[in-house]
């Protein structure tokens, strides 16, 4: 009896080894699943939250930021710096400088949530790497103008 159990254990153990092979060997002949990153790129889902940028609205020239500073206060990591000027005595304030330090941003979307003007949205950028900490400071106004020029 003991001998039979001993042999049974060996045989069943060996069988699970064979089962393991039956999983992995067929996989060799199946097509590849991975994306060859620098050569091919995935398109990001429209919902993807990259770093923030100023929203571009069709039929509108400029951005909507009025430099109210709500996003500055909402930001948990004190990433945002906004400066605005009043163009004249009457008109509303407009943001002239909107800096974010992306290296400290945690992409929580709180600033987008609180913006009363809906001036902010998330960009689609995901492969960002910098040589210097300076480079991670993004001027959103300059970025907005660049995008506008490109159309």
């Amino acid at each position, binding site marked *: 009896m003991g001998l039979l159990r001993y042999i049974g254990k*060996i045989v069943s153990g060996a069988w699970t*080894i064979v089962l*393991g*092979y039956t*999983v*992995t*060997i067929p*996989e*060799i*002949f*199946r*097509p*590849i*699943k*991975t994306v*060859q990153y620098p050569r091919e790129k995935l398109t990001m889902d429209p919902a993807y939250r990259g770093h923030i940028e100023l929203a571009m609205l069709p039929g509108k020239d400029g951005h909507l930021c009025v430099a109210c500073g709500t996003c500055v206060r909402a930001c948990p990591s004190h990433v945002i710096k906004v400066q605005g000027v009043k163009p004249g005595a009457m008109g509303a304030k407009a943001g002239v400088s909107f800096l974010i330090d992306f290296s400290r941003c945690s992409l929580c979307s709180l600033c987008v949530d609180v913006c009363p003007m809906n001036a902010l949205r998330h960009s689609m950028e995901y492969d960002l790497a910098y040589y210097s900490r300076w480079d991670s400071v993004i001027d959103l106004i300059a970025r907005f103008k660049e995008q506008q020029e490109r159309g």
Partner: protein
Amino acid sequence: MSANIAPGLWNWLAYWLSEEVLVAVVGLVIVIALITVNSIGLIYAELKVAAHVQRRPGPMEVGWHGWLQPVMDAVKLLGKELVTASAVNKPLFIVAPAIVILPLLVTFIVIPFGKTLIIRDLNMGLLLIFSFSALNVVGILVGGWASNNKYSLLGALRSVSQCVAYEIPILITVMSVIIMTHSLKMSEIIAAQDRVWFIVVQPLAAILYFVASTAETNRLPFDIPEAEGELVAGFHSEYSGMRFALFFLAEYTNMFIVAAVFTTLFLGGWRGPVLPGPIWFLIKVYALIFFVLVARWTFPRLRFDQLMTLAWKVMIPLAMVNLIVTALVMKLVQ
């Protein structure tokens, strides 16, 4: 005067150009080339097998489908600094990689690649292979000890006990083949498989040899001497550059030798239809290695004591039974 020298020179030249020496020298060159090419090929195969098992393409950048990747790796390793930690035992530390690789070179003397493609068809061929490939473990022990690293030492100790445990089932299973061939000569073992391969006659011995030899080569699931999850890199934790590469080379060469012996013992060596002998030999060897490669990417690693249990409580009894049965049958057939 020139007349006196000429015959001497001629004799001297004739001696050095004699078939025997020529075969030895050319053989050595070929062997060194072979182990390098074999290792590079196997590293490439490993990278690609691992990748495709995991549904990735593997290396694709250097050369067509990345075939130059292992070559580039070798170049990189050549260019690397040979770090010697201050607390190591320097002479032993330096000599260990050589101890690992040199005995493996010797074993190539008797590997029969083809009917005549064998450096020396020694009478004690099989014995020579086993005695020299067992020396491999001395290098590992020396390297692990000399590293003065606790992980390395643990790896080295494990390696020794593993090798001791698995040499025994290997030798016993081989014995049951030798009983049938009445010879340790490689060519005669192959000749004995004229009608039928020994894998058909001795299936259990073949399986046992395959498992035990995988353990001998420290391949997963038996790679406990270098278990990276536990011992970081085991016995070669402290090695870098070409010294590390030599350990690597030894591992892949060892795999080749083990598969070559399996082919000789159980798969009829170079025998096969249509294609020439050496090609058949290599096909069989690499087909076997393929299974060893896939095993690494399929199974978890055994624990140290389970490895010993497998050797002493499963493999050795089974090998003994196999040997006894073989001996009895041989006696009865006579």
